[in-house]
């Protein structure tokens, strides 16, 4: 089967039930918003291939159920994730407080070097806001991760969020490649080699 992409990234959406993970994903993969959506039971994923600096990157984005009770099942899918979106709802204080629990959850179940990003969703609901943008930023700084406020409904910065995460993963990956595969014959080799090596590295990552 011919590969239609250069890299495959596995991403994960986590956060409390109802913060809008499925809607954010639907916005990103279909550019649509649906108010008749159902809650997520178990786990599912969607695919979207994006262009990033001339590379085709296939994003496989996993959407998990938010309710605590299902965590034993959903964490089984953390393995092999290269990027994780931590989502909270800016109109729901509790979902923001729970982010630290989710981070702990990641530390226990995902690989240590997974790229993380914090999303404050439903940002168009300014009148119902309970979590200020500053608090979101502050938390992100604490954990040393990036932060963006989005709205799946009004289509605000959802694209940007995923592109940012994908770009960070790509940069991290290429840095690793360079470290493990130092250039011998200058630029020439670098231009031809990456075609093969990245797929090797990736297949190891996504095999898990």
């Amino acid at each position, binding site marked *: 089967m011919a590969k239609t992409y250069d890299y495959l990234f596995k991403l994960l959406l986590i956060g409390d039930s109802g913060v809008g993970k499925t809607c954010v994903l639907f916005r990103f993969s279909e550019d649509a918003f649906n*108010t*008749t959506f159902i*809650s997520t*039971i178990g*786990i599912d994923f969607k695919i979207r291939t994006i262009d990033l600096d001339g590379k085709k990157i296939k994003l496989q984005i996993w959407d998990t159920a938010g309710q605590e009770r*299902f965590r034993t*099942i959903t964490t089984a899918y953390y393995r092999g994730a290269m990027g994780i979106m931590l989502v909270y709802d800016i109109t729901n204080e509790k979902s923001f407080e729970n982010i630290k629990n989710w981070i702990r959850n990641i530390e226990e179940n995902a690989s240590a070097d997974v790229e993380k990003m914090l999303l404050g969703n439903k940002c168009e609901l300014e009148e119902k806001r309970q979590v200020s943008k500053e608090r979101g930023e502050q938390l992100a700084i604490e954990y040393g991760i990036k932060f963006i406020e989005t709205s799946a409904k009004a289509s605000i910065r959802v694209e940007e969020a995923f592109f940012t995460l994908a770009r960070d993963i790509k940069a991290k990956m290429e840095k690793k490649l360079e470290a493990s595969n130092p250039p011998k014959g200058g630029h020439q080799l670098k231009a031809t080699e990456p075609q093969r090596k990245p797929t090797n590295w990736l297949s190891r990552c996504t095999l898990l």
Partner: protein
Amino acid sequence: MGDSLTECMEIFSQDGVQLKTAQASFVNYLNLVGTLYITEYANSNCRRCLEWKPNDVTVDSDVQDQEWAVVNTVQKRSRTYSESLPPDSTIKPKLLKVNFVDIKSFKTSNKNRQLTLFDGKSEIMCCFMFQHGNCDYLITVLRGMLKTIPAKRDKHLFIVIHDESLEAAQLDKSFAELNIFQDPPPTLWKLVKSFHDRPYETTLETFAKVTDYVYRSPEQRDIDDDQRELLHRSLTEYASSHSQGDYEVIAKVPELPERKDYPRGRPLSAEQWKNLQNHEGKIEDVEQIKLMIFRGGVAPNLRYEVWKYLLDYFPWNSTQAERQKLLCEKNDEYYNMKLQWKRMTKVQEDNFSDYRERKNLIEKDVNRTDRTMDFYAGDNNPNLQLLYDILMTYIMYNFDLGYVQGMSDLLSPILHLLKNEVDAFWCFVGFMNKISSNFDIDQAGMKEQLQNLHTLLGFIEPQLVNYLDKHDSGNMFFCFRWLLVWFKRELSYDDVMRLWEVLWTGLPCENFHLLVCVAILETEKQALMENNYGFTEILKHINDLCGKLDVAAVLVKAEGIFHQIKEAEHLTDNIRMILGLPLVGVQQCPEEILSTSPDSPDEDLYERVYDSMQHVMT
């Protein structure tokens, strides 16, 4: 060889013991009363035996050579009978003899008045009825002489451990089987691990330890019944194949009986329903009704009434008058509970985080439940309020369980059908009672089901299970959604109603929904394996079956699978337990079937209804 027989010692005897079941050559002795002995032979391999001899022998036996019939051993006719009874004896009683080494388990039943011995190949060796009292004393004696473990799930079943059978070769098999468990006790796990690395050494060194572990300290270490059962099974399977001489590390896959088609019947009609009620409105033949529903479902216009019975809101044997009374009581009870949360003040709520948490979840889910259906569509739809109120009241009814996602999916069709808050609530309670383990805090119920599904699928489609195991999918998590809400997310509303009402009958066995899963997976086997799908594609493929399943076809297949399993010769107790089938041999005693599994009707009724439906259809 005869001289050994003189050295025979009677250790124990009990009179008034009736022979109920035995191998075919004893047909003339069935129901005769006699004496049961435990005897010991000094110079014999099979030192101890259980022997039964009829009291007065007036039986016209066609056996001329006065032989001992040795039940179910490798060497039949090991000895002649002539020397143990006076040669001048004019009567020729046959003795039934069971060597202790051949007893793999035994079970008491009927208030301990009945004792059944098993040979470990799911066959009854013999069954005795104790006419004067019970067999308690005999059991005490037996347990003093045999090493036994009581089965945890059936306190009347004792599994016998034979030291002699602990040879290396059989261990290959038992360890291979033990390995399928995901959470074995650490000790076992270590053994399994090192077994993989150094198969033979580990086997020889450690099996004795495992046996000790199983046998010596059952009080200190709580070994899981499945593992115990597996050990037992592997021991007995080994023993029974011993004579064939060659051992295999991987067990051969035994053939299943041929799959038969059980075409679906017609839905239960209003007329049939009426005819099955007596003048007071009682349902007389509940089993028959359930069978008809199992076979064909319920006509849509009748669901409104029948679901209340299926969901244990109305007792089947209630009269019209009693139901009227019940409705009033249940109405009051419901509104009492509803008031409890309705009256909660803001301060109370602020100080009650568990309640708040449940309430928030419900609010979110009510807005995400079947909103594409007219009944729940649009903003400010009053039916959403009903959905909300019922779920909130359920919290007060069962606060510990609370609200878990998926529950609104289970309530939605019920409310849609009944369109009445109180009725829908109580029917929902009935449904939840059937499947509340799906929502366990630790998800133990779901995990057990996934494990059981793995076991059942392995019995029907070992190849597919093998494939799934090798592709990181042996945990069966990809079936999680199917099981959690009983296919609510995969099927259309009509199909879900049909499937649920069939499953609610509890027929033809427990956990039939797992066989429904097996049926679907079997259908998808080719797609999964030929495309060489991996972990992600398997999940995707299964998730994408949503909207593509044909309920009737799946049920036909699932029922066919059920009969295949039931009739399979290599059926194990593990599978029997999952499906709630009577454990080894019990099928011989009809009164037991009723007492052990009240939901499974006898074969006769089954055939009868099935035949009558065939007539209707043709």
